[in-house]
């Protein structure tokens, strides 16, 4: 049983509480990677000079600027080596382009970079075609957003479609950014439609505006559930066949400078099912939403839309330099189980948001038995000069 979430904590770790419906929070568990050089060479990916991301120990931030003790409802899953104490405080620095963020310029460098400077207005109609991989990205003032939804290697082998989806949107007269990920249930034949529709709907759902100020630990998403059922019925489908998880974050675009002199952003995350959110701070991944601990329970049951419409809610305080990542379990399980993957992924975000191609290289790593679709939608909170 969790306590009431708070939106005004200055110490970020105090902001998360486990919602009532998800039961007793697990005790904090931490996986700390060995110091660089003591681990075996990367078996999954190479970190050559052209790789974009590198697992080499680029100095990271000073110790967690927020300080304090992590609450039991969140847990650290992996830590990037921070073996240089004389490092800059990444939280206070504006983004600096690194190998991971650069793209190819040919000829005289123009003013127009490839990264979108605004969020695209998307139709809610769901295209029938499901491409192997989708990219969503944008560099807004203070928010660098990078999202990939990649077809799992199992689905590629079988020739079946990706059932994950991502979506970006703006609500509250563009004062809020909404990011959503959804994971259609593998056992349901039209779950790719459910995931696509649920994510798209959530990302532009006007009522999501109230999520930031919502009281309690649950949020009513029955509008999304009803729309999903209606969409299924219009297509002559049983609503169960479009079952999907949904996790979405609402982010206030305008930061406020805290007493620590660092910009802070208010964020709320709503979750139906087992698609989890993580924070990367000072090279350390922390699970922000409760993990069902499949390895312990031997179970993999999820409670999806449209049958379940009560979302668990977490209110978060993000600081400049933090990365908030929404994932489906295909990525979340890798992040929690495979330190090398967590390290590579953290490396991409060390000083700035990566290019989609650099991110793809890491997210699409071949890892035995991890063949689920992989979705990762992350926001790096940037101090604006």
């Amino acid at each position, binding site marked *: 049983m969790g306590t009431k979430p708070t939106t005004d904590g200055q110490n970020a770790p105090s902001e998360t509480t486990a919602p009532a419906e998800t039961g007793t929070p697990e005790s904090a568990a931490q996986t700390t990677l060995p110091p660089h050089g003591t681990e075996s060479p990367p078996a999954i990916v190479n970190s050559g000079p052209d790789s974009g991301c590198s697992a080499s120990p680029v100095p990271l931030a000073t110790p967690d600027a927020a300080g304090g003790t992590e609450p039991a409802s969140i847990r650290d899953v992996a830590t990037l080596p921070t073996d240089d104490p004389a490092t800059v405080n990444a939280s206070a620095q504006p983004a600096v382009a690194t190998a991971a963020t650069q793209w190819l310029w040919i000829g005289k460098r123009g003013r127009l970079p490839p990264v979108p400077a605004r969020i695209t207005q998307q139709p809610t109609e769901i295209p029938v075609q499901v491409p192997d991989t989708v990219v969503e990205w944008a560099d807004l003032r203070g928010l660098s957003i990078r999202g990939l939804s990649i077809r*799992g*290697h*199992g*689905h590629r*082998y*079988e020739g079946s479609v990706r059932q994950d989806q991502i979506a970006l949107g703006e609500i509250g007269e563009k004062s809020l950014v909404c990011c959503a990920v959804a*994971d259609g*249930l*593998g*056992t349901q034949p039209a779950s790719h439609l459910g995931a696509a529709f649920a994510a798209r709907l959530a990302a532009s759902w006007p009522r999501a505006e109230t999520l930031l100020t919502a009281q309690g630990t649950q949020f009513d998403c029955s509008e999304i559930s009803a729309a999903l059922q209606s969409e299924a019925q219009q297509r002559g489908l049983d609503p169960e066949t479009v079952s999907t998880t949904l996790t979405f974050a609402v982010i206030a675009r305008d930061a406020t400078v805290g007493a620590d002199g660092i910009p802070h952003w208010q964020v709320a995350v709503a979750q139906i099912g*087992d698609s989890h959110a993580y924070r990367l701070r000072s090279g350390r991944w922390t699970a922000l939403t409760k993990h069902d601990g*499949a*390895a312990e329970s*031997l*179970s*993999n*049951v*999820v409670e999806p839309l449209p049958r379940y419409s009560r979302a668990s809610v977490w209110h978060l305080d993000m600081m400049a330099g933090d990365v908030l990542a929404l994932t489906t*379990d*295909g990525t979340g*399980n890798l992040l929690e*189980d*495979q330190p090398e993957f967590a390290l590579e992924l953290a490396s991409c975000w060390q000083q700035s948001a990566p290019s989609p191609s650099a991110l793809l290289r890491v997210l699409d790593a071949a890892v*035995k*038995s*991890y*063949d*689920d*679709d992989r979705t990762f939608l992350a926001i790096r909170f940037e101090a604006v000069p």
Partner: protein
Amino acid sequence: MSNILPFYLVCDESSSMDGPPLKAMNDALPELHREIGTNPVVCDKTRFSIVTFNDEAAILQPLADLSQITRLPELRASGTTNYAAVFELLRSEIDSDVAALKADGHRVFRPSIFFLSDGYPNLDRDWQKALADLLDPAWKLRPNIIAFGIGNADPAIISKVGVTRAFMADGTMTPAQALTEFAAVLTRSIINSGSAAGDAPSPLMPSVVPGFTALPADEV
């Protein structure tokens, strides 16, 4: 670390299984081996074992990645039908198998047992106590059990063993034909469960098996 779903084929090798029934199983197992062992999605995530029983119980095929073994051993019939021995053996095997997988750094999902019998259990051993131990709610690794009965198997007992699902041959096929269907369902279940990418209950089972009638869940 990998995600592993362990499967156990638990097969009655009593003398009444001799002849066409056991031949059908021995004919079907190489096909199961080929289908699973050559599917990279499934063999990366599943492990398969064969446990047999007659007067006693034995591990015919230790839990293995089917892509890593050249052939499955053959079943041979003799003796009686000792349920207690096989349930006791399964409990200890699952304990040691899961411990070994976890020691190798794997994430292990709940084991699934496909139990097949054509007879009535020996009465000289308390098989119900052994079954209760195997299904002990306090034992974290308690398996899912899908039970199939053919020939002289008692539907009430098959229903009691098959806590996840239970099926009884309906007499529309010969025992050998029914066992061919059983083997096909076993293969399909392993493939579907392995392919479900970890977001479905395991094992994934068809609700209808040709030649068999689904038995109602055992009520107490």
